[in-house]
């Protein structure tokens, strides 16, 4: 294992770097896109069920199929990393739009009414009251989406762009276990680290949760 790593350090590092970009860029874009979409699902209740169903169907499209199709639809080259980024963004939005809607729906109506009574307009009420209260739910969804993205990126290796997934295909073609194990370990570590960062960040931006827990 160590000899493989020392001989192929550059390859592994490049793959890891590409993996991080391919997995995390879609998380950021997807979150930004999912917030307004999820909000629409709450603002207009008749939109909620169609939204949930569309998200479910989008999520059931195999990632491999999406990776292959996007070049045809977007006109990008098959080896362009953009295909992976767009595909994973679609999954992230499918996962998070529903979570955002569920989180906002679960906000205690009394809290919303109090905010309204205090003079909050709709937009300020959303950004200052409803979104913060829904944050724990949204962050839980964000954890799932981040971890799922990190493991999905490697499927992209089947079409030539897949970060650590390229170590899998290389090992598989050469019938050589080492690169596959290195790829799996790094991918799992990366997911664990990203998950931890979101948890810590979540604690930082929702300090009131700790006070609630201490009080109860």
């Amino acid at each position: 294992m160590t000899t493989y790593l020392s001989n192929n350090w550059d390859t592994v590092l490049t793959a890891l770097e590409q993996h991080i970009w391919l997995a995390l860029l879609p998380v950021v874009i997807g979150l930004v896109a999912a917030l307004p979409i999820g909000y629409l699902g709450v603002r207009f209740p008749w939109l909620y069920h169609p939204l949930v169903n569309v998200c479910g169907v989008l999520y059931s499209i195999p990632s491999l199929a999406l990776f292959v199709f996007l070049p045809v639809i977007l006109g990008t080259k098959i080896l362009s990393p953009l295909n992976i980024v767009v595909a994973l963004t679609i999954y992230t939005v499918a996962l998070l739009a529903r979570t955002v809607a569920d989180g906002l729906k679960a906000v205690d109506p009394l809290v919303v009414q109090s905010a309204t009574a205090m003079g909050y307009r709709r937009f300020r009420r959303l950004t200052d009251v409803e979104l913060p209260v829904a944050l724990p739910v949204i962050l839980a969804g964000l954890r799932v989406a981040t971890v799922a993205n990190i493991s999905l990126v490697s499927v992209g290796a089947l079409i030539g762009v897949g970060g650590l997934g390229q170590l899998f295909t290389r090992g598989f073609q050469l019938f050589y276990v080492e690169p596959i194990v290195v790829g799996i370990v790094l991918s799992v570590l990366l997911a664990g680290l990203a998950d931890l960062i979101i948890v810590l960040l979540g604690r930082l931006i929702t300090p009131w949760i700790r006070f609630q827990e201490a009080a109860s």
Partner: protein
Amino acid sequence: MNLSYLLDPAHWDFSDGSIPMLIVSHLWYVLLSLAIGTVVALPIGLWIGHTGRGSFLAINAGNAGRSLPTLGLLMLMVTLLGLGLTPVLIALTVLVIPPVLTSAYAGIRNLDHRVVDAAKGVGMRPWQVLTKVELPMALPVLMSGFRSAALQVVATATVAAAVGLNGLGRLLIDGLAVNDYSRVLAGAIVVAVLAVVLDLILALAQRWVVSPGLSKR
């Protein structure tokens, strides 16, 4: 890109590699790994939920399992064990275990404490509390975990084709290899339809197994 591959009757004739045969092998992978994963994960999840011991494991199993890249696991297993059904089942079962385990645990843990206390109070033994009270009442949560596992496995079973096995991934991989996008489209559509149909069947099963007292019907 068009529907010609999907609509061509020659691809529906039950010969080797035809769409119906690929659906059968795909479903075979899916159902076997769902069954094995549930047999492994359900008792553990129920036990953790019932006793409250090891909840750390139950909570973190979900994210740990999700973070294992299925393609890597599959290729590792094929490299170690050789080509066959076993590597696919191992890789897919790893996807099934976390959601089933976590939802079984969460379903029991989130029950109203008074219900469990009442069950103990009327003299039920721990086994009866688990099978007659906790399990039936945890079923809605448990079923939603099982349904998300099923959705994920249906979509992911396509990677089996990447190591030379069957399943609907064949349409994707072979179509890509010969630049036949109509075949890739056929594969994607059939997988998505299969996922939706399976979810509908499980939704019906859920209505049937969940007690009317819980679903308020």
